[in-house]
């Protein structure tokens, strides 16, 4: 049955127009804020800041890696269903063009949401109309399975893009694992992130299909010294020792792939590990405060390592308490994850909290959607997770339920597209 609704010419305002107006109006407020006031405290939730907030889509590296972590995530892993490499190549071009627009707050195509033909479905789904760019970043990655020979890419597979091993205590759900491609959408407004993934998925029908996807809220790490360290669902500050965008030497050594690493097309790229970590929230909440702090190796309030005063005070794994017993236990999370223990290996973390409702027995289906970037997963993430899965006292409260690995190609110029290096 059809009921016909009228058109309202007045409502046909492009996202670009709205953005332009809003942007001009609040530019001054943004400049004032930058002087002195902590960006993080002022910015989050402030409409003034949200309105001026675009992150450059172009650059040496893809946006969404060292970009100051936004508040919300929609992550999707997709499988390629076509056998025609030309179609895949074309989709990557289409996606690039759409991403270039959406990351500046525009619709997928001009007049996409309401300005098109009345007889056609809109070219843009419209739920982000009137919303600013909200620091949207779109980051793409290629999974190991993309290099299986279907598209003649076997010789292009980086050695670093290993099939992740099964770690102790993993309980991986195949419907939350793997994928030929991934799209990471981060934004300060969940609707903007969801809109971006939804529209890219739609452009991909017939070429790709969604394998799994995950929503995340409340970034659980910071990637810039301008950001305060957030808390995860265990209530602890998470990612205090994370690599920050200001640590250019560390980024060069630990995050960005180089041509000399084996695959020239990956120079300036990185490797993304995605793990869905279910937290047994209810049992954690029954653990004593002291017990919780022992497990993490930090105090819950300030986030300081045990034996230290401030959050960012240097961690001392050897500091002794009464009777010479180490304050940071052998199985404490920060000891096992520290680069001192791991021969200097570090990773750039970018995870998000998630709550996917409840699990049917009344427990929160919640946890940490762990995202991390490193230069060589074989020598960085894998040994770190081996140590944690085998020994971490926290493993009693968490379970890894999803797992995926992607090669994230380098950034784009205004004329290049996401498939260029890989297929070029």
């Amino acid at each position, binding site marked *: *049955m*059809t*009921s*016909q*609704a*009228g*058109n*309202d*010419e*007045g*409502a046909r305002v492009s996202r670009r127009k709205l953005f332009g107006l809003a942007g001009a109006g609040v530019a001054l407020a943004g400049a004032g804020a930058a002087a002195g006031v902590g960006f993080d405290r002022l910015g989050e939730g402030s409409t003034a800041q949200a309105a001026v907030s675009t992150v450059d889509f172009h650059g040496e590296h893809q946006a969404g890696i060292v970009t100051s972590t936004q508040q919300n995530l929609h992550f999707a892993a997709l499988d390629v*269903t076509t056998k025609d490499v030309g179609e895949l190549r074309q989709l990557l071009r289409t996606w690039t063009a759409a991403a270039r627009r959406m990351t500046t707050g525009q619709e997928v195509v001009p007049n996409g949401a*309401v300005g*098109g*033909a009345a*007889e*056609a*479905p809109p070219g843009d789904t*419209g*739920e982000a*109309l*009137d919303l600013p760019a909200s620091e949207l970043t779109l980051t793409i990655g290629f999974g190991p399975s993309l290099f299986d020979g279907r598209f003649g890419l076997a010789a292009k597979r980086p050695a670093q893009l290993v099939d992740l091993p099964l770690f102790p205590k993993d309980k991986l759900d195949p419907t939350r694992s793997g994928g030929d491609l991934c799209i990471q959408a981060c934004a300060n407004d969940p609707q903007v992130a969801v809109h971006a993934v939804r529209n890219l998925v*739609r452009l991909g*029908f*017939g*070429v790709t*299909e969604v394998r799994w996807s995950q929503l995340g809220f409340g970034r659980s790490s910071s990637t810039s010294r301008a950001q305060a360290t957030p808390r995860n669902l265990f209530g602890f500050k998470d990612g205090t020792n994370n690599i920050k965008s200001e640590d250019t030497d560390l980024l060069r050594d630990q995050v960005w792939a180089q041509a000399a690493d084996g695959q020239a097309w990956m120079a300036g790229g990185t490797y993304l590990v995605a793990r869905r970590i279910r937290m047994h929230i209810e049992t954690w909440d029954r653990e004593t405060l002291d017990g919780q702090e022992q497990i993490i190796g930090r105090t819950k309030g300030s986030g300081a390592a045990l034996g230290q005063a401030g959050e960012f005070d240097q961690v001392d794994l050897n500091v002794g308490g009464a009777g010479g017993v180490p304050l940071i236990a052998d199985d404490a999370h920060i000891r096992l994850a520290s680069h001192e223990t791991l021969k200097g290996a570090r990773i750039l973390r970018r995870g998000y909290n998630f709550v996917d409702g409840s699990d049917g027995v009344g427990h929160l289906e919640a946890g940490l959607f762990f995202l991390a970037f490193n230069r060589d997963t074989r020598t960085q993430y894998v040994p770190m997770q081996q140590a944690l899965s085998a020994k971490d006292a926290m493993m009693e409260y968490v379970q890894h339920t999803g797992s995926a690995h992607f090669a994230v190609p380098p950034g784009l110029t205004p004329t290049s597209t996401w498939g260029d290096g890989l297929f070029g």
Partner: protein
Amino acid sequence: MPQSPKAPLAVLAGVGALVALAACDSTGSTTSAAGGPIKVEASDTSCAVAASTANAGNVTFEITNKGSKVTEFYLYAEGDRIMGEVENIAPGLNRRLIVEVPDAGKYQTACKPGMVGDGIRGDFTVTGGAAKQNDVNAQKSEATKSYATYVANNTSALETETAKFVDTVKAGKVDEAKAQYATTRAYYERIEPVAEKFGDLDPLIDVREADLQAGQQFTGFHRLEKDLWVTGLKPDSGQVADKLLTDVKDLVTKTKTLQLTALDLANGAKGLLDEVATGKITGEEETFSHTDLWDFQANVDGSKGAIAALRPILQERDPALVSTLDKQFANVQTLLDKNRNGDGFKYYNELSQDQIKEFASAVDALSEPLSKVAEVVSK
């Protein structure tokens, strides 16, 4: 249509009118169409339409429900073909309906207090103006003619096969009736968007038990499906079968007078695949017999039938779209063929989650390009 909450109110305040209307008008529409708004005052016993004529083009009605029951408003063309409708007008509310009426002729307005029955009818005449949409282009006219033949062939077979099925049910031959059930329905599923043009007939023939409203009788194919597969034939099964045949005959008669436009074909082709995506992929349509894949095949056939009629137009205007459609139709067909079992198909409950996902993905891949056909045709 997402809008900032302030925008429509501000616009309305500017023209100094109808603020109360906007508050309950979900479309947020503020412009009046060329025909000018015609006020309709609906009560529980009357339907006062302020004008009984209008010029062809867009005709706008503004309906106020002054009664105590929830009501609906319809504009019907001859043969009770629905031109436009607005449902669920709660007591005290105003709603607006904009209907595109391209052709001069006799129409009827109707209010339906309590949203039941034929409603309180009034004659409505449309004069002059717009050219007949389905004649403007010889190609489009050819397309609709060709599709009308397709519809006629299927409705005629539907009538014949339904008559056989009804006889079998009435003879109490359960196994035989089960075997006829899915193949009979196929003729209906191929042309369902056409059947849906007749608002009352589709629910009588094809309502699902889960969609019944309070007080609505469970009739049609799915009632017999339940009798055959779940409960066993009941004392009134024969009556239900007879009623089904009556309704099908009624449908066949009405389709003969139906004037479809090329746009109807395009939207119908898409609508059939939408049915697959929402009803068949989930196994909801044939919940007792699990013969969803038979319906699925019929919907695909029907969609292909409509696209075949439009093919010359599409080929001329967007050949790339045609090759995409051909490819994706073939892909869906290959999947269906993989799940054949003898003359029929596997039952829905024999499919694995992976197979269902494969179907869903193929249907998405076909439906996206199908949704672009209407725009190409309308140019």
